[in-house]
């Protein structure tokens, strides 16, 4: 089943077309990678899905229902959660409070504060942050802040999780741990759509890749297909490099 689907997705900023007529889909249970050079429009596409930005044209569907046109908080409550490229934790609030907001507000149905706290704790346990739950979010490491964003997103009980550069800025050990976390989340039955620059990490973990360049989808396929695709190599290394090799 297609859990997420976009048709003719377009976004103009004034005269600049950031995303141009992109069709894409994510199957339930998949890990799909979204790659492309800087400025390709990857984060813009995520912003369109989560309604941080409004579509210029096209339609986005979640589980067959149109979600483009909904407000950001409504999209979260339908079951699409996300993290941010530049970490956006609530710095002066305790780690637990950050996650608690997710379980209190991110569900389609209300929940008592006791249940919400319990679920927030479970979320923290899952990403391995229970030990720092009482500390203000600004005082934990970047790697942990990224985990915190994941925990906050998971607390909203999503069916689809959008991860925007979870690995960027992490050291090799932290990268491995982050990749393990992604697999663990998928094993819980949550579909994952992730933007990443670290090819080695993304090639190993994704079932399928979508490549954006200048706001257009230029390729789509398994990691193996993408790695050997002529267009993709040209985009990443330049036409000359390919011709000369």
């Amino acid at each position, binding site marked *: 089943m297609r859990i997420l689907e976009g048709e003719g997705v377009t976004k103009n900023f004034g005269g600049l077309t950031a995303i141009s007529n992109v069709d894409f889909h994510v199957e339930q249970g998949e890990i799909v990678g979204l790659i492309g050079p800087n400025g390709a429009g990857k984060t813009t596409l995520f912003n369109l899905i*989560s309604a*941080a930005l409004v579509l210029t044209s096209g339609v986005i569907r979640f589980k067959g229902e149109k979600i483009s046109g909904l*407000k*950001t*908080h409504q999209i*979260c*409550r339908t079951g699409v*959660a*996300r993290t*941010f490229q530049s970490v*956006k*934790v*609530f*710095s*002066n*609030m305790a780690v637990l*409070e*950050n996650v*608690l*907001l*997710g379980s*209190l*507000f*991110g*569900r389609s149905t209300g929940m008592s*504060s006791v249940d*919400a706290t319990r679920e927030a704790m479970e979320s923290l346990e899952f990403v391995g942050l229970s*030990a*720092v739950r009482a*500390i*203000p979010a600004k*005082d*934990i*490491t970047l790697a*942990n802040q990224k985990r915190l964003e994941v925990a*906050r997103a998971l607390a*909203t009980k999503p069916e689809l999780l959008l991860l925007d550069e979870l690995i960027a800025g992490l050291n090799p050990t932290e990268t491995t741990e982050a990749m393990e976390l992604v697999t663990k989340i998928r094993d819980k039955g949550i579909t994952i759509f992730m933007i990443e620059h670290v090819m080695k990490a993304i090639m190993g973990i994704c079932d399928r890749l979508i490549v954006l360049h200048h706001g257009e989808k230029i390729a789509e396929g398994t990691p193996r297909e993408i790695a050997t695709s002529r267009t993709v190599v040209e985009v990443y290394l330049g036409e000359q490099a390919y011709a000369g090799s």
Partner: protein
Amino acid sequence: MILIILFLLATLPLYSRGYTVVLLSSIFMYIIITVSWTMFSGPTGYISLAPAAFFGVGVYTSALLGLLLPLPAVIGMGGLASFFLALLVGALTLRLRGIYFVMFTFGLVELLLHFVLWWEVNITGTTGRVVPTMGNTAVYYIMLIIFVILMITATFIKHSKFGLALQSIGEYEEAAAHTGINVTALKTITFAISAFFIGAAGATMATRWTYIDPRIAFNPLISFMPVLMAIFGGMGQLYGPIIGATIFTYLEEFLITRFPYYYMLIFGIIMVVAILYLPNGLVGLTQKLRKGGLKQPHANT
């Protein structure tokens, strides 16, 4: 502790001089405005300069309805008029951030001031109005009641999930929306609740002034005072604005009577010093002193 203070405040007019009652009414008025202001602007970081607009709407409600309705209804109407004005204004402008929001809210005060002025001169043909008076003790008790209801409301909001959500809006509004918080609705409703209490205070105060005109009702100082008082007291805790407003109002009275010619100058200097050296207000200062400089950084992982 709280009950004892409340008992003392409730019985105060029985054994104290008239002046104390009047001064305390003024202090309560400023506490109500400052706590209301802090309830919204404190956690969200949206600095509103609209209190004078809401206060003025309360004052005029009192002037218009004072003879027609019983007193509690008049004050309730003053609060409600401000509540609905804030709902409207909030829905329109709470998407503006930073300086734009500040300027818009201040513009609202000027807009209402000049609109009412124009209306009074051109339509009703007056400039001032007489408000039915009800006596200093009555004003005192009403302010006390509004204050108690406000504190209950503010405490409830602060410790509910909505308080947490308001704080998250102040930290990262975009992330708050992505966490499922209906940021627009929450901001607008909190803004309106805070306006309700400011309007009610305005409606009450009008009866003490007996004569009002647009420049008295929509006095821009009413917008600036809560900001200064909240900064002076400290916004982290609910009692910060209370302490700030109390000291400020008393200080103003004291300086006006002792140094009528220099009071504004002294007042200004105190303000500058407070902002320079007390970034977290008096509450922040006492907390720092209590810790005794032993700042323990959190263990990191």
